């Protein structure tokens, strides 16, 4: 067992002697990781878990792209194809992107606000360790008779109720666990930020990564219970004879979509707000200039979060809403581009008349700004209801959300890993490998996702295992880009293994020339316990 004083709450910090609970109490081997309540260990666990899930979800994407390499059915049958698209989406959203951000929050939030640990360390352990179980259940369902969930990650009723397989029960259970984990993680972030900021760390002095995560955590608490409600109603509709979404029993299948997207749209921002925070940390460092418009960045993040609650039905324009509702959701959605634009403009203004260098984290951050903006602009096009009738459920939408989530959220996570990895390991990563990783990813990801705009506009629906002949040429390119992007991530894997084996040149506490913030004032690698005595912020 870990020593009970391993974790330090603010009240205790001053009372305890330093040496009483220092490094010699760290248990080794599997026990260290199973029972850890240390925010750095838990952060590492989250990040490795997310990376493994990213590779598994990516392998499913490879199956999808292999089947779509040419028209006709070659490799998988349509039923398995649908399972692949479904589980790929679920794993990437709940298994890769969200845990990666939680891992970063665990590592960085206490270090950035001068706290010794997260506020609720035992819950922190618990919120991580229920995740592998959740995904084991989900993945195991693929081996059931009839296969795993095949109704899309959006699990629209009644496809997910009356017409789904028995694996739906496992799907519901695993989503419940993922949701519980997210809620616990979010509570921890909020309590930590509210109570454990070092003296002098006022709200408007907090690093933007902390701000964006605080707002994200509130979004999580607001919408994860809605998702839990949706899956529970699916469960009772399927197995216990209720009719929430069954018109024959007085329910309404479209109500499912309203409930799902009331969760789903804020969920989109849950996956991008921390990315905004990361980019807002990295761009000033490598521009050697303070972030432009700090206050407006905070307000823009808060506005995006609030607006995210009133735009959900833009995912549902074709479901047949009153024209007034369609217009409301169109205008509200367009409005979101204003605060999002402000963010992009602020980043560019930060670079303007800076003194820029292009280290690997900056390369990823710059790629993020350009490619996320492309995803944002196609999002603006999708907001226009009459045109959305043409775009909806085509590859144009697939292109849009992969630009936002892969070259947006995932590129920001990679940028963050490269930026803070030397702080975590105390050594510089292999820069040559990192550059190979960046350039291979950047080129292949665009070969992968850019032509999806074309096939989508030309009329290719999403979620089909086979397609008409006029889409064949582009799909070949898309698949090739997909395979190349998948392989590029193995470079990242090699780099991370090297980094964890403590190879590379030792780095200074500041690591990067222009880096500012509390995390750059502690030694590299960051000691197991930091800020046991809170720093004073001027």
């Amino acid at each position: 067992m870990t020593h009970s004083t391993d974790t330090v709450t603010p009240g205790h910090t001053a009372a305890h002697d330093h040496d009483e609970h220092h490094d010699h109490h760290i248990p080794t081997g599997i026990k260290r990781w199973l029972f850890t309540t240390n925010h750095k260990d838990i952060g590492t666990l989250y990040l490795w878990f997310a990376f493994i899930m990213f590779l598994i979800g990516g392998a499913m994407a490879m199956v999808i792209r292999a089947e779509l390499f040419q028209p006709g059915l070659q490799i998988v049958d349509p039923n398995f194809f649908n399972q692949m698209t479904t589980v790929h989406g679920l794993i990437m959203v709940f298994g890769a992107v969200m845990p990666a951000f939680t891992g970063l929050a665990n590592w960085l939030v206490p270090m950035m606000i001068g706290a010794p640990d997260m506020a609720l360390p035992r819950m922190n352990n618990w919120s991580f360790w229920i995740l592998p179980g959740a995904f084991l259940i989900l993945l195991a369902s693929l081996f059931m008779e009839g296969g795993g969930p095949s109704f899309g990650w959006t699990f629209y009723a009644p496809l997910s109720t009356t017409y789904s397989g028995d694996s739906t029960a496992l799907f519901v259970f695993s989503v419940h666990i993922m949701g519980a984990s997210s809620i616990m993680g979010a509570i921890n972030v909020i309590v930590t930020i509210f109570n454990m900021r070092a003296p002098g760390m006022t709200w408007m002095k907090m690093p933007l990564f902390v701000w964006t995560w605080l707002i994200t955590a509130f979004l999580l608490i607001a919408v994860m219970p809605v998702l839990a409600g949706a899956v529970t109603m699916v469960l009772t509709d399927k197995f216990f004879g209720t009719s929430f979404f069954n018109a024959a029993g007085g329910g309404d299948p479209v109500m499912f979509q309203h409930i799902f997207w009331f969760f789903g749209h804020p969920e989109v921002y849950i996956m991008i707000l921390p990315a905004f925070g990361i980019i807002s940390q990295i761009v000033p460092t490598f521009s050697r200039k303070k972030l432009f418009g700090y206050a407006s960045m905070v307000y823009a993040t808060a506005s995006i979060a609030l607006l995210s609650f009133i735009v959900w039905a833009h995912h549902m324009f074709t479901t047949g809403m009153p024209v007034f509702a369609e217009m409301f959701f169109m205008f509200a959605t367009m409005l979101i581009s204003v605060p999002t634009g402000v963010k992009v403009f602020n980043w560019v203004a930060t670079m303007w008349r800076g003194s820029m260098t292009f280290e690997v984290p900056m390369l990823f951050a710059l790629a993020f700004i350009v490619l996320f903006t492309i995803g944002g602009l196609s999002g603006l096009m999708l907001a226009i209801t009459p045109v959305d009738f043409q775009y909806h459920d085509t590859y144009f939408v697939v292109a849009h959300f992969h630009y936002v989530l892969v070259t947006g959220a995932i590129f920001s996570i990679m940028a963050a890993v490269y930026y803070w990895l030397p702080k975590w390991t105390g050594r510089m990563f292999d820069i040559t490998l990192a550059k190979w990783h960046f350039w291979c990813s950047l080129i292949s990801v665009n070969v992968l996702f850019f032509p999806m705009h074309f096939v989508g506009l030309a009329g290719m629906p999403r979620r089909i295992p086979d397609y008409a002949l006029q889409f064949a040429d582009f799909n070949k390119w898309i698949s090739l880009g997909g395979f190349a992007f998948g392989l590029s991530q193995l470079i990242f894997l090699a780099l991370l293994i090297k980094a964890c084996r403590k190879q590379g040149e030792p780095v200074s506490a500041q690591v990067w020339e222009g880096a500012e913030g509390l995390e750059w004032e502690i030694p590299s690698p960051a000691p197991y316990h930091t800020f046991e005595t809170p720093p004073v912020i001027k």
Partner: protein
Amino acid sequence: MKRLTNVLLIVLGTLPTLLFSFIAQAADGGGKEVSDLNLRRGVTEISGQVYDLHMLMFFICVAIAVVVFGVMFTSMYLHRKSRGVKPAHFHENVKVEIAWTVVPFLILVFMAIPAARTLIAMEDTSEPDMTVLVTGSQWKWHYKYMDGDVEYYSLLATQQEQITNRFAKSENYLLEVDRPLVIPTGQKVRFLITSEDVIHSWWVPDFAVKKDANPGFINEAWTKVEEPGVYRGQCAELCGKDHGYMPVVVIAKEPAEFNAWMTEQEEARRRAKEEEQRLLAMNMSMDELMAEGKRVYNSACAACHMPSGEGLPGVFPALKGSPMVLEDQLAHIDIVLNGKAGTAMQAFGKMLSLKEVAAVVTYERNAWGNNTGDIVQPKDVNAVVQGE
């Protein structure tokens, strides 16, 4: 090396912009032709408006991208440490912040006005010249003309052998059906759209009509096609295993031709009903029933129960060796006619004639080694229909 990185960065940064202008060019040459790169203009006034809106939005987005990326890449070129630049110290400016909040807002208002106008026009389904009820079910469409006695199912016509790569793929691979929807040109046709099982979405890109088919609810859409022609689309909402095999084909004919077609269809339906009455009085041979049954089975049943009759374990039950198929003949006819509530098994009584039901039940009871020797005649099916 540093220099090379910078050059590469700039090239890659401008690449998306170039690609955007590439589509723009392709779009100009597009016209009514189906483009590989861009949305099509389509053949209705509404679809033209939608296309114009799309292009307007697209050019505004390209302009924004060019400005933002232009400034960004200029900065990346000019304000590099390797050029010996010392960083400036400014980090806020309220006027600039207000400007880049207000200007985008005004651009949005400029976009919103034509978008709202088109939207209102699209949703105005009042005063149609004729109405078609469109019903989706796994994995076919059903069309019913509300102003005449014509209704039929429309199924994928692409052969299975093309899908499994044994035959060469035809020109309209996956976009062809056995019986397309036929509508008159120059008339406002209203579609009432619904579903019998899961949610489907009826989409014809050339009309800019895409509307979900929700079970238990009816959606409305409309079109007015000026050009005679064949227009192809697909189901757009994931609806299960064969979602990718559920095309929509619409033929627009001149009104006179359309009326002739309608009369022909009504006549054909009358003849089919008479034929059915005649069949009740006679017995068909086993060979005849098996041949017809195989045809019906492959078009109506094989998608779920598989051509081998083995189904998909855990998803769709097998018919080969099934107790109901081997023993209970009445229950077998009943489930084909009326379906099974709460499952994916549909009621085929509406889709198949008495003769077809008789043939397919006979086929199922004698194919794949089921060998019951049972022969089901149309009159046996009729007895179940009549509740005898």
